């Protein structure tokens, strides 16, 4: 194997194997598209506000995704919802990964911290999301930021677990010992060796946490704990449900549901494809 590995760096190898996976590429394209939609939302559709005479219209040329029960354009809602949903997803996962990285690596490297941190992780996994969400929302007001923080608070334990298990595999590696022998401090080793080492796993984690965050955001908004001043896909669904039009005005639920599905699906597929690409054993 060595002779071949020598020809391509693992990164390039991963990339070239990734490139040949149509699902992975399609997912990446969809994500990119959604990102663009999120960034350029103001150019695509005006912010959905106000009310109009065309209430509960099915999709038409004027309103691609139809209108809701107060006459707002569902397409515009979905477009702007992309922004919030992706922002919450991304920021929650960044936060969760930050905390998870720190805790996971510490637990793996500082043996003494392992047990207390393990208890902390167990605890966090057994904590109920909903009351905490209500609590934070009440103390800080239901805003996109609050949502992100709360979701992050519930996602980090999983990241921490993954990171810890990966870091545990790195800690006994001779190159860590080598760094110690040349005089590197613990902080140095954590920074220069452990963190870069767990980054690839975290890459997958980011994607998965993001998709879970998107679903959580939708769920919380659906339960009425979202930010009323911005549009997210969960908010659209929540409003559709509140208006009692879930089943009849199918367009008010279908499109946001599809958007959620598409985003979560493509992020998940992306991580699967990335994982596959990284696993050179299953190369064909």
């Amino acid at each position, binding site marked *: 194997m060595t002779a071949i590995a020598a020809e391509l760096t693992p990164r390039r190898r991963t990339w070239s194997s990734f490139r040949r996976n149509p699902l992975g590429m399609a997912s990446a394209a969809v994500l990119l598209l959604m990102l663009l939609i999120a960034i350029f939302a103001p150019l695509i559709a005006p912010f959905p506000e106000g009310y109009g005479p065309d209430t509960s219209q099915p999709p038409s040329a004027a309103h691609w995704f139809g209108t809701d029960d107060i006459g707002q354009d569902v397409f515009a809602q979905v477009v702007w919802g992309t922004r919030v949903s992706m922002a919450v997803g991304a920021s929650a996962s960044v936060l969760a990964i930050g905390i998870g990285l720190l805790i996971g690596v510490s637990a793996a490297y500082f043996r003494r911290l392992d047990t207390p941190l393990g208890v902390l992780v167990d605890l966090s996994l057994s904590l109920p999301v909903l009351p905490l969400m209500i609590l934070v929302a009440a103390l800080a007001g239901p805003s996109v930021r609050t949502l992100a923080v709360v979701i992050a608070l519930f996602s980090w334990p999983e990241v921490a677990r993954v990171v810890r298990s990966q870091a545990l595999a790195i800690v006994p590696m001779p190159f860590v010992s080598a760094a110690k022998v040349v005089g590197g401090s613990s902080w140095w080793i954590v920074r220069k060796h452990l963190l870069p080492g767990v980054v690839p796993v975290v890459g997958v984690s980011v994607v998965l946490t993001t998709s879970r965050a998107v679903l959580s955001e939708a769920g919380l908004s659906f339960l009425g704990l979202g930010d009323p001043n911005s549009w997210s896909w969960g908010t659209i669904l929540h409003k559709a449900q509140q208006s009692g039009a*879930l089943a009849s005005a199918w367009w008010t639920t279908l499109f946001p549901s599809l958007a959620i599905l598409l985003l979560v699906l493509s992020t998940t597929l992306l991580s699967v494809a990335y994982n596959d690409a990284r696993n050179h054993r299953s190369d064909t």
Partner: protein
Amino acid sequence: MRFIGLRLARGLLTLWFAVTVTFFLVRLLPGDPVLAVADPNMTEELRRKLLADFGLDKPLAAQYVDYLGQLLHGNLGMSFRQSVPVTTVLMERLPWTLILTGSAMVVTIALGIPLGVLAATRAKGWLDRVIQLTGVTAQSLFVPSVGIFLMYVLGVWLGWFPIGGAVDLDATGIAATVSMVHHLVLPCLSLVLIQLGGYVLTMRTTLIEALGEDYVSLARAKGVRPGTVVWKHALRNALLPTTTIAGLQLGTLVGGAVLTETIYAYPGIGRAIYEAVGQLDFPVLQGAFVLLAAAVVVANLITDVAYGILDPRVRTT
């Protein structure tokens, strides 16, 4: 033995921690439990009396000590709102939740493992792609959307399944069981859908990894039949991560599935918690959390034991 003792100690620590955190958390919730119970139009005296009745007039620390004391006696207190013991409130819901989440878990595992194996043994073939894609798609579904879709299509249009509820009123004996299953199908299906992907994908990944191991080559070199190679040699090694997922899930079983129970009007504990939050029924909430934490701790223990059964290297005796 020592290992079990340590695990147990750690479990108790986790439990205590959870009880403490949730105790204070619950009491930080905005709103006034007294308001949620009695008419807001009450006199100050009544208010004080109610607070005293609920034990909310003492300082937090004293309330906490009281609670711990009661908890040690297995007493979870009385529901503010319903004036019945918390245990009663929870035990009414727990069986339903366990039926729903438990059956979903069993079905998921029973489907997920074979599908994962199928995908892994045909890695990168079309069947693998189909299984993967289905799993991932199902996993990405948003519960309320699926719920409404399923209820509308299978319930209202086709009339195959009832809308909401857990069992028919008149059914007794076998008919009751049939009706229970009948009501279970849709909520269970949507839970299975969203969980299946996790199992399939994990199973697939770990099995592919295991199939590349030397001991699999050795089994083949020994002339073992291909099926036996997969199911006997590779699968058991690949089951550990799946066990981890299942263990994690096991711990959340008693917590119910708020969204699913809500959508399908299933009388589970998840909804009870959701309602108790709305009613600021501290004792019920607190009791539910103790139950959740205990379940997580027990599930961890079970997972460890399962690890030991699956992997002799972990065995402790």
